[in-house]
């Protein structure tokens, strides 16, 4: 059996999305910036997608800007606001210690350029509070950037409450919603954010296309210099195929959202329950509440994540790990360390992430295979012997 359980990394392109994109690989080749009909056709396709995205997250189409990916959206939002408003507001930024690298590395670069960043620590389930944000605010705070949902453990932050704090202090707020859009309801009006990043390939659109929501009146500096595309904000000839795909995928994801969330959460709960019943000495790193429907992050104590992934792969199961060895980094996942896991338990983590295409049969297959893998590696592990000796 083949089980794709890494939907937080990327998703399979929906065949209907592919179908919607096909004209862009054929006759729909005009440049949207031109005035003849060939160009206008392409322009219309881009504007239709803009409306689809705007409708999905409840904003005006004119507040949606297409980008190349979530990373670009994050960089544009953070750097663009920081540089634009530094002179007026100051050079202090508030974030959390579990953000995606796209946010972290952008902030690290800004620190080198004289910005100061406060990294709010999350609790052991991966949450920050509006009170923490309020306490970190300074007169020179120019931006708050806090992710909507975490990519590794699935914790969903109280963005609405945090945005209310930001608003009452006149500070702009950006959220990286790359893991949230298409998976949970995302409504920028309700959330009250000023900027929001999203990425198409996380909800069955192709790779290479994302978007940034920018509230009307908010003016981040441009990242790139060039032509007048995207109302002079984001130069570069439009990725027509990708943009059409993004629009089609977000429309489909939001249309079926409620039903899909129920199904995916059922799969998540079945897997968590099954793991706890069949594998002793596990730790579920996914929080118990306010979490994504499809994310299961678990540490199997006394064994290491990459070796689990290799054996899962041998059995046709695609998953990922926060182990240093799995990523090629020297340290395990910063998110798992941030929720207080010791290094050795972070090294033993595996993340499964599901979408509406996953089935109960697939979960049961994982539950058949995974405990055997854990047992096999534990029999090979000197730490497992020691742990059992300590108990005896």
């Amino acid at each position: 059996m083949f089980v794709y359980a890494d939907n937080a990394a990327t998703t399979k392109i929906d065949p209907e999305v592919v179908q919607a994109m096909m004209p862009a690989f054929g006759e729909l080749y005009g440049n949207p910036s031109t005035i003849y009909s060939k160009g206008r056709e392409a322009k219309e396709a881009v504007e239709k997608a803009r409306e689809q995205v705007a409708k999905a997250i409840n904003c005006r189409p004119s507040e949606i800007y297409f980008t190349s990916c979530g990373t670009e959206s994050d960089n544009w939002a953070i750097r663009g606001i920081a540089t634009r408003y530094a002179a007026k507001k100051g050079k202090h930024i508030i974030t959390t210690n579990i953000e995606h690298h796209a946010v972290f590395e952008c902030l690290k670069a800004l620190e080198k350029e004289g910005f100061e960043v406060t990294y709010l620590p999350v609790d052991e389930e991966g949450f920050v509070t509006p009170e923490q944000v309020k306490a970190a605010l300074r007169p020179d705070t120019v931006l708050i950037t806090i992710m909507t949902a975490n990519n590794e453990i699935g914790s969903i932050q109280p963005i609405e409450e945090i945005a209310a704090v930001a608003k009452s202090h006149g500070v702009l707020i950006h959220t990286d919603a790359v893991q949230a859009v298409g998976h949970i309801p995302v409504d920028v009006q309700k959330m009250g954010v000023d900027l929001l990043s999203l990425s198409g390939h996380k909800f069955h659109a192709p790779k290479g296309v994302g978007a940034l929501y920018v509230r009307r009146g908010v003016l981040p500096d441009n990242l790139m210099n060039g032509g007048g595309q995207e109302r002079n904000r984001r130069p570069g000839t439009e990725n027509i195929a990708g943009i059409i795909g993004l629009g089609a995928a977000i429309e489909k994801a939001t249309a079926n959202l409620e039903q899909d969330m129920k199904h995916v959460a059922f799969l998540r709960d079945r897997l968590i329950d099954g793991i706890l019943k069949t594998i002793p000495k596990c730790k579920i790193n996914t929080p118990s509440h306010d979490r994504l429907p499809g994310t299961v992050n678990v540490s199997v104590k006394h064994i290491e994540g990459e070796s689990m992934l290799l054996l899962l792969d041998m059995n046709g199961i695609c998953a990922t790990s926060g182990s240093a060895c799995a990523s090629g980094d020297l340290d395990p996942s910063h998110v798992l360390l941030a929720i207080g896991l010791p290094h050795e338990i972070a090294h033993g983590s595996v993340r499964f992430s599901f979408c509406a295409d996953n089935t109960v049969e697939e979960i049961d297959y994982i539950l058949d295979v995974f405990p055997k893998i854990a047992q096999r590696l534990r029999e090979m592990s000197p730490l497992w012997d020691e742990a059992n000796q300590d108990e005896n």
Partner: protein
Amino acid sequence: MIYSAKVMDHFMNPRNVGELADANGIGEVGNPKCGDIMKIYLKIDHDIITDVKFKTFGCGAAVATSSMATELIKGKSVKEALQMTNKAVIEALDGLPPVKIHCSVLAEEAVQAAISDYLVKKGENPADYGIKAPHCGGSCSCCDHCGE
């Protein structure tokens, strides 16, 4: 990151996994904080390694290098086993990804630590055999195990 077919074979079908009840040389190197620990058990008879087993906590490369290292020293004399370098382990496995080189260093050190234990028990000085105190290979930033 891609492993060679040999690495995958030694990970999927590791040779010499387990413990030796009558081992007269046991060495353990690594650190759970860094994500890998290797423990090697040697049965040495008249300076010949007659049996060897290992237990490893770690990634695919850690298991494969442990497995290959035990194969390389089985039946060898103590002096020959001490000649086994991490490079020999890498070559025997048809290469390792650069980030996994430290696993091969760990395997070399696990062998040296086990032989060192044997020599100490015999009343000999491991330093006379050129054995240095084991460390993690110096490639981890995650711990201060090396004290460097």
